[in-house]
């Protein structure tokens, strides 16, 4: 019997945690822009400025139509 009570408390607190996360994410503006976040993660971080040891542009200059659909 007491097991069920404990489980109930556990389930409610987990659910409340998710509710909290949801409210936080809305307030944080995570639903304001649905386009850029999924793309942002795909951009490679190129080496920071200053150590231009090799011009990376020479190899990938050709316009690739890797994902031509991306254009709005």
């Amino acid at each position, binding site marked *: *019997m007491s097991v069920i009570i404990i489980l*109930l408390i556990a389930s409610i607190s987990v*659910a409340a945690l998710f509710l909290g996360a949801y409210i936080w994410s*809305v307030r944080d503006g995570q639903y304001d822009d649905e386009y850029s976040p999924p*793309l942002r993660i795909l*951009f490679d971080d190129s080496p920071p400025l200053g150590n231009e040891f090799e011009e990376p542009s020479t190899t990938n200059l050709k316009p*690739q139509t890797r994902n*031509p659909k*991306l254009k*709005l």
Partner: protein
Amino acid sequence: MSIAATTESTKCFHCGEDCEPGRITAGDKQFCCEGCKMVYQLLDSQGLCDYYNLNEGPGITRRITVRKDKFAFLDQEDIKQQLISFANDKETHVTLYLPHIHCSSCLYLLENLHKLNPGIVSSRVNFSRKEVSIVFHQKEITLRQVAELLTSIGYEPFISLNDLKNAKPRVSKSLIYRMGVAGFCFGNSMLFSFPEYLGLESAEMHLQSAFRLLNLLVALPAFFYSSWPFFHSGWQGLRSKFLNIDAPIALAILVTFVRSVYEVASGTGAGYFDSMTGIVFFMLVGRVLQEKTYQQLSFDRDFTAYFPVAVTVLKNGEEIQTALPSIKPGDTILIHNEELVPADSILTRGKAFIDYSFVTGESTPVEKSMGEIVYAGGKQTGGNIELLVMKEVAQSYLTGLWSKDEFKKASEKKKFSFVHLLSRYFTYIVLTIATTAAIFWYFNDPTKIWPSVTAVLIIACPCALLLSNTFTNGNILRILGRNKLYLRNAQVIEEIANANHIVFDKTGTLTSSRQQEVTYHGEPLDVSQIQAIITLAAQSTHPLSKALLKYFGKKNYSTVDAFHEIPGRGVAGMVDDKLIRLGSQEFVTGKPGKVSAMPVVYVSIDNKVYGHFTIQNFYRKEVPELVRSLSNKYKLSVISGDNAAERNHLQQLLGENATVLFRQSPEDKLHYIQQLQQSGEKVIMIGDGLNDAGALKQSDTGIAITEDSNNFTPASDAILEAGQLPKLQHFIQVCKANKQIVMASFMLSIAYNIVGVFFAVQGNLSPLVAAILMPSSSLSILLITFGCSNLVAKWKKL
């Protein structure tokens, strides 16, 4: 530079526009202009060439260069203060609107601004709002330099007078919170109800009250917080003596809650908490879907959104950037090419060609000479002019026009959706059934009055109607949005469906502002002469030169020597040892020209006048078909601010029955719409410029046409991309289908209701039956509305 031999055109590596091969190159890349090449070299040197890998030709053409001091006003402390959102002694935060943002490459480049200038700490793009938030160290880079950096890579920030008011309406998120809370309550409530439905062993009966109490507890936020909008709107409706759809829904929620609390408190039952929270959740989902509109579009623009933030004021020979509101009568202002005149003033220096299309719809620029009055809202085309300000910005003709009472919608017409009327009948029927059941049980078994009446009210609330309405509306809005017709809200769907008269503006709506029809009158020209003409025209940015270029298509260019342009009059230059002059009659022939209804470009070669081109408005090629498809169902009118030169042509295009009116001032347009409405017609007005603003507002549905959604449109109910105009009839049909879909799914829900009421009047609606009926009816409505509206869209090829 030499003549290129090949005829095929290549695409500019930067912006993807057609360009002449081999003229401007860097490595093996071709560019259309020096500007594009510069951007490429800048990005290349900073290792940002991923920009070009993400999309082909992602850049913005740099052919039109931005004036050097355009952002000088950002050095003014008072203007700066109003634009930045946060500043301390180290860094500044600013959010700028960049209309050019359009693809993932833009995102990539704009979020890597710190690589282009170390003074920028970070930048973050909000794609749907087309905004970039930039944090920068003001010691290393000024706001003006930030704006100029953005401009130099092709993303010119748009800063208007509107931004200074600092009143950016935030999208209210309260509905989204309420939905989340209701979802939380619904899910948990269902879990806690399982023991009740599945049955508990006798040894565990003591747990029953624990589960019921928990159920009551999770229902509290759903009742007191989430369902508030329904109570609020229902109460508002009752106060204004109108029974809207939310009133019976609020009543049902209230009855369900009270009865459930009573049952739990008295230990007689488990209540209907799961059904109640579920219905609140689904209804809120519908509302959120329906109210999800387009943040990046503004439906409420007034003229201030068009006006620049600052203009150049001349004081003692010095150019001072001054914020627009503080321009005073007596100031001398300097207006550059393509700039808007912000206040009524007198021309004191320079040759003014004022394009008033913004205010009147007249498409041909008007020539003004020294001492004449130039009204606010006109756009200078040509060289710089100096003006003496006569009135403050707030008192100019344009502003006065705008603040006229007629331009404000007469006391926001009360519009009620048919759904409210339907729900009213529905409510009466439900109340009748409830009373009948109460009377019946009063004579037979008085203990069953309370359970049967409450059960009827619970089961028969018009939530199915509301659900079908909001979900259908939401989906239709989405479908239309996919086809580039953006509606302000769901009510517009119904307004479009009800319309019976369609009024078009001419300039920019039926005609395209990007294309013109060119005809040549005079001695025939041979190929080399044509080539020489377009070579010369290509050097000029004047709209008429561009029209000529477009007319002749892409040809090879030669070189031009001794080129000179007299703004507003014409161009001249040596091409292949021929002296070519293009321009007004006076400029080319030396004789004063007569006023013509349409723009004319004269041409002379080696001082011999060959003839002239007339440049006519180009009717979108879909117009005839559009008119044909609409004319048998709708009355059509065209109202234009332009002169009547094209009356015959237009009448022919639209057919005998259409009304065609010319020389209509903004007020005339508005009055025409009013007249139609007074004779009982429902009007859709389709227009583009500010001159249509009053009519757009007055009409039942105002649709603003725009060449692309980055552009600025006057206040309206809907925004349509110009290319989609031919689909207008399909859009209207989809809007009409909307009502039928709502009705159909409502019929289905009535079937569910009859089953439910069958149990309810007998006084034995078990929570289990309610718990099955509620989600299944909601889900089937959801499927029907989505399925049907998508089918209709597919059928109409949208």
